[in-house]
């Protein structure tokens, strides 16, 4: 790297300022949506979840452009197994969002936590040269876990990227009134305030957008914090 004083001789551009190429330094923002694909989701739940994510994409594209971030979106589904429905990719390149199909298997949070711990690493999903914001993870389920997820969760909580991530959750359908589901999800999210419960299916699409965009916007709005106390 040349130092000031001699770098200026390296200049090759000699045209009008408007033609000068500009390179961006946007922050990369990884957003992962983890959706429950167990049989209990069959019907309205899964179709609305898919529709919600489809509607979310153009809003994320707008968000990324407005706030000048490079937003990578990844979608994974879980039962007692994990499936990456869409590996993280720049949201501008998302033309169609692959739907989540329900499949046999029990609701196991542990498989999600295990996968997140594996993938939230510098040599996997966080591989990026340049500025990178804390990831955003949205967890969507309609029921309490059937597994003993705590060991995976404990390991995951030691993952620095997870610890810094902004984590929200949507509990839908019958899970909305299930205290066990609430208690389990509460251990995952950044704070208890980050759980959105949706009893009515008709509200799921809007809730997915609300949860994701609010969590993302919260990151940006923190840049303009009101002060804790007013100074007179």
């Amino acid at each position, binding site marked *: *790297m040349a*130092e000031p*004083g001699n*770098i200026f001789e390296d*200049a090759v*551009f*000699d045209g*009008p*300022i*408007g*033609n*000068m190429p*500009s*390179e*961006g*330094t*946007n*922050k990369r923002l990884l957003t992962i949506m983890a959706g429950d694909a167990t049989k209990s989701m069959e019907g309205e739940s899964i179709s609305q979840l898919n529709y919600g994510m489809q509607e979310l994409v153009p809003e994320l594209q707008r968000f990324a*452009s*407005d*706030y*000048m971030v490079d937003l990578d979106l990844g979608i994974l589904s879980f039962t007692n197994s994990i499936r990456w429905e869409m590996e993280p990719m720049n949201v501008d390149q998302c033309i169609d969002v692959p739907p989540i199909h329900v499949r046999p298997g029990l609701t196991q949070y542990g498989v999600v936590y295990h996968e997140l711990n594996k993938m939230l690493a510098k040599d996997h999903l*966080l591989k990026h040269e*340049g*500025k*990178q*914001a*804390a990831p955003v993870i949205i967890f969507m389920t309609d029921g309490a876990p059937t597994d003993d997820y705590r060991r995976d969760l404990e390991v995951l909580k030691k993952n*620095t*990227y997870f610890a*810094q991530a902004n984590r929200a959750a949507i509990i839908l359908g019958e899970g909305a009134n299930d205290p066990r589901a609430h208690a389990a999800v509460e251990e995952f999210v*950044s*704070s208890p*305030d*980050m759980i*959105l*419960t*949706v*009893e*009515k299916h008709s*509200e799921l699409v*809007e809730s997915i957008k*609300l*949860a994701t965009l*609010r*969590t993302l916007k*919260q990151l*940006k*709005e*923190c*840049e*303009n*914090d*009101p*002060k*804790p*106390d*007013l*100074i*007179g």
Partner: protein
Amino acid sequence: MPLRINEQIPAGTRLKTVAGEDIKVLELISAEGGQGDVYKVSWKGGNYALKWYNRDGTYQQCTKDTQKWGCPKNVDQQANLDVVGSAQYDTICNLVRTPNPDPLSFKLPLVVVTEKGAVSKEDEKRKEMLFGYMMELLPDDHFEMKDFLRSSDDPRQKTFASFHAMIWAGMNIVAAIRTLHLKGMSYKDLKPDNIAINPETGHVWMIDCDNISVDGKSCTVNGTRGYMAPEIVRSGFRLAPNIQSDQFSLAIVLFRLFYMDHPMEGKLWKKFPLITEDVEDELYCIHPIYNMNPQDKRNRPDKTYAPNVERRMAILPDVLREGFERTFINGIYNIHGRTPENSWLHILAKARDQLVFLDPACKDDRVVRFNVKEKIPAGCLRMTIGKGGHELALYPMQSIFKDIISGDVGEYNIRIGRAGISKGTIIIQNLSGHPWEVYDPVAKKIGTVADNRWFRVLPGTQIQFDAVRKVIGKVDDPCR
């Protein structure tokens, strides 16, 4: 149905000014603001912009109950209420009553708007009340400075039509902030989002002026990360923004206007795999290192973190660097060591006078570096003005501005002369309103050039612009 926090106002909704006048919401313009949304509204037969405060930093669930949606770090509930409640309301009411310090630069609040109109001071619900203010709409030919910071592959990128427009934009921003500071007020949240620029002319509108208040008075913002002054973050956000913090923010804004990148971003950032708020506070404010600091190479620009600055510095006038070094080296710890606005206007005037248009339509321009002789346009002369040695590139279509003669930086946009060409020789027209004394090196005579008259200029020509102050411009050929 009453409007609620964190919810957008539906088109067609009717609101009222505090004087009871009707307002109709037409459409959403922007939902990007940290404090509220901006709408196009109609009022008294005209269209205006309405900023509506509807953020409280918490997000209420819109579907079911009052469950809250995450409170940003460092923000407590009382402060949140104050943003939408009484403190900001009082700031806006004060601004509505304050004469606009520069109506050609600031879009200040015109009138306070609520759902139902008048609000009494004793109104107990005032703290929970939603409100906003109206301002003039931004003309279509102005764009947020943020859009000038986008990369070439971003379809929303805006670029300056010329170096002139870019430097004029810088001068106009500085002049606007200076006007405010001269009135004893400070802006408090200066950043690219709050500045709209005409890319052809460099004219600037200062928008989102709702945090302006008398310097030292309370306010509901700290500024914005990346633009906030170091002392605010170091104080744990206890210090309020003021004139000195505006000067820090101003230098960052100007740096980005000219060089795109952030002055504190460089290779040091590689050490941080995640850029969290804490990391930003550390690198922007607690231990910032200016990436072009000649004495400290630790945070040099690189292709990832600051890919534009070196290339742009290479083509823009070197004099600009003075102002940045003063603020980003001396002014980090010493808040009074930052480049003040009058110094910026001096610096920018030097940069302005190094620019020349290469065509009669004033579309294509270049920076003239007198020390790089092979790049000087053929026939370009140099005029060195006054004891300070201010250099002006003399070329057809060039203008001479009053500030360099009078020494009053506020006169940076008053043209007192212009250059043209006749029979292959540069000529100047006196537009000052006063006669100039001109020494002709061929005739070896001093003559008087009346207002509006043209005269030829050759190496050796001397112009006395001001007989009282004896301000003289001496012309030479920079290629010799």
